[in-house]
């Protein structure tokens, strides 16, 4: 009886040790995948408020709704602006997949969508500190991931990942460093570098909440290098993971007819 009890305790201890050891051996790829999966949900309908602050401290506020859906070969996303008045009705449709991404911009005054050149993805999104590329999802397989170390950031233990694009991937970034919370796998901070390894901007996650069982970034800030007072603040005002987004929402036809 005595030995039996000791056996059970030893077995439990061994299981815990193996479990802990296994968890500590998550690869960089697995960490990146778990983190990106929080963003790349099968269906996600959200409303955002984006505040762009220029170097003089002047603010410009945008509000837009985003529909995002994962497909078998990538993802599709539609953004529709409803504030301010000069941007009302503007739509941006993105089809992201291996072999090349496609984007369309819809302007209500012209009543038709036009394809945007792929290089324009490195343009600033609505004059903010974010690029068009930042508004799309990043397939985990497009990058080589390396786990640098574990660090503590603002009281949270984080994995520090470094991700570099694979050859042939169309991106304006040469390297990204991401601080990923070891418990929630929510990215807490990102540093984005250009192809010459110069720091371009830093993204700070200010608020993340558990919504419908999914850790969701509710607020983040993007600050470009040498920004002075300039920065971009993105706040998610609402999110819906449960409603299935019809496939026809993420087509050029819908982009042109629903505004």
């Amino acid at each position, binding site marked *: 009886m005595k030995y039996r009890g000791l056996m059970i305790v030893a077995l439990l201890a061994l299981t815990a040790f193996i479990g802990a050891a296994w968890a500590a051996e998550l690869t960089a790829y697995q960490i990146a995948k778990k983190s990106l999966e929080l963003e790349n949900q099968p269906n996600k309908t959200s409303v955002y408020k984006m505040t762009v602050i*220029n170097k003089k401290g*002047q603010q*410009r506020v945008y509000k837009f709704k985003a529909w995002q859906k994962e497909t078998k070969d990538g993802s599709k996303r539609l953004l529709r602006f*409803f504030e*301010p*008045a*000069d*941007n*009302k*009705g503007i739509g941006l449709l993105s089809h992201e997949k291996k072999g*090349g991404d*496609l984007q369309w911009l819809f302007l209500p*005054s*012209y*009543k*038709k969508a*036009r*394809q*945007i*050149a*792929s*290089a*324009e993805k490195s*343009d*600033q999104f609505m*004059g903010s500190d974010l690029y068009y590329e930042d508004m799309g999802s990043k397939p985990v397989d497009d990058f080589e991931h390396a786990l640098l170390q574990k660090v503590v950031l603002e009281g949270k233990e984080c994995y520090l990942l470094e991700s570099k694009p694979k050859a042939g991937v169309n991106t304006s970034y040469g390297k990204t460093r991401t601080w990923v919370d070891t418990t929630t796998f929510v990215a807490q901070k990102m540093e984005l570098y250009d192809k010459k390894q110069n720091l371009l901007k830093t993204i700070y996650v200010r608020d993340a909440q558990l919504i419908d069982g999914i850790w969701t970034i509710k607020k983040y800030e993007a600050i470009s290098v040498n920004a002075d007072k300039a920065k971009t603040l993105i706040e998610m005002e609402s999110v819906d993971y449960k409603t299935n987004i*019809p*496939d*026809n*929402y993420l*087509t*050029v*036809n819908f982009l042109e*007819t*629903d*505004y």
Partner: protein
Amino acid sequence: MRRIGLAIILVLATCIILPLPSPAEFGLSGSLSNQLRVRLLQSDMPDDYDWDYTMLMTALDVQGRAANEEKSARLFFDVDLRHDPTGVFENDLEWRFREGYAGYYSPYVNFEMGKRVFAWGMADEYNPTDLINPEDYRWFMTFDRAERKIGVYNACLTLAYQNFYWQTVAVPYFEPAILAAEDSDWLPWELEGFYSITNSFPDYVDLQVERPDVEVQNTELASRIHGLAGPVEFEAVYFNGYDQLPTFDVKIDPDPDLLLSGGKPLQIFQQYQRYQAAGGSVAFSVSSFSFRGEGAYYTPRYWMYEIDPALLSTDSLLGSLNSLLGLTDHVWRVRKPSWSAVGGFDWRQGTDLYLNLQYVHTQIIGREPEMIDQANEGLVTAKIQTTWLDQELEAGANGAYNVWHHDWYAKPYVRYKFTPELSGELGVQLFGGEPKSRFGDMDDNDFAYTQIKYLF
């Protein structure tokens, strides 16, 4: 017909929107603007010419949208009210019901009905396959094409699957283009030549306007297939409908007794001719460039011949009779097919610099030198835009140059956004070239303008 159309729209909207239990989305937006245009003085103006403003237009444009939560039922309307004391509008006021349509939308099928402005084709500003809507030419092309378009009553069915859709539009009620008035500064020289006949013989002319009746066989049809093949977007279009610009048929009865008895020996029929068009467009991007091409072939339509002014003489009744006899054998028009194609690209550097360049070629097949129409043969168009001050200040220019006839226009402007809702614009529109050319004809109409606009 307009009242019937409105009634249909309201009934359809009521049937679609109201019974549905889901909460609906409603939204109103629009703009309030004021534009002042002043003609620019030129060196060859007469000495007694006094400056005048050619436009002082205040416009209120309101757009409304409604949809149920599933977006399976939607309603859209666009109305505007314009005031201009320069005499363009009757009583200085004009109300336009530009669009008003309701629709049912499902993943694979959309059905819409009402009054609507379509925008087909992937080129910019010049679209050979965008044939459904007529345009308002009262101010020539000084307004952008999107603003010139006139809505048409239609029923539209769209079948969609993934990145492809097939759209068919039926237009039962024909709307012609609106042309400049006879006394307008914007009247093109071709129509001036025509009006010279009617004005030369005002007592002897019987002008009859023949407009397609609202009958099933007169319904216009347009259809397009839009899709994606890899990175290339394409569209194929077919159109069977009416030319919104009129053609004129002339019949002369040279019987002197008819003339002497006060009859009208000169009959002029203003007609709208039916034709077909087939074409398509394509667009794709490479690096920072976006390429677009569009083209269409048009079945034979009438093109007018020019009239020798020497044939027109009204010194006396006898002179008039001689003139009419001289016109008896005149060939007024001939049917010819034609084609039009546009090719170009746009390039962007960051968000602050944008350049668009296109070549537009329109060709009447078997064109004869005596024909009036010049069309757009060999037109190079360009557009450049740049922004400063965090996109608050925008400067740009649009322009075109005809490499065959050497006429041109240019529209440089500066726009400043005081707030996201309020902007001010300053610009000029300049025209140049030979008198009997598209833009040279408007040489005396160069103007400067200022506009203030509030969006809501």
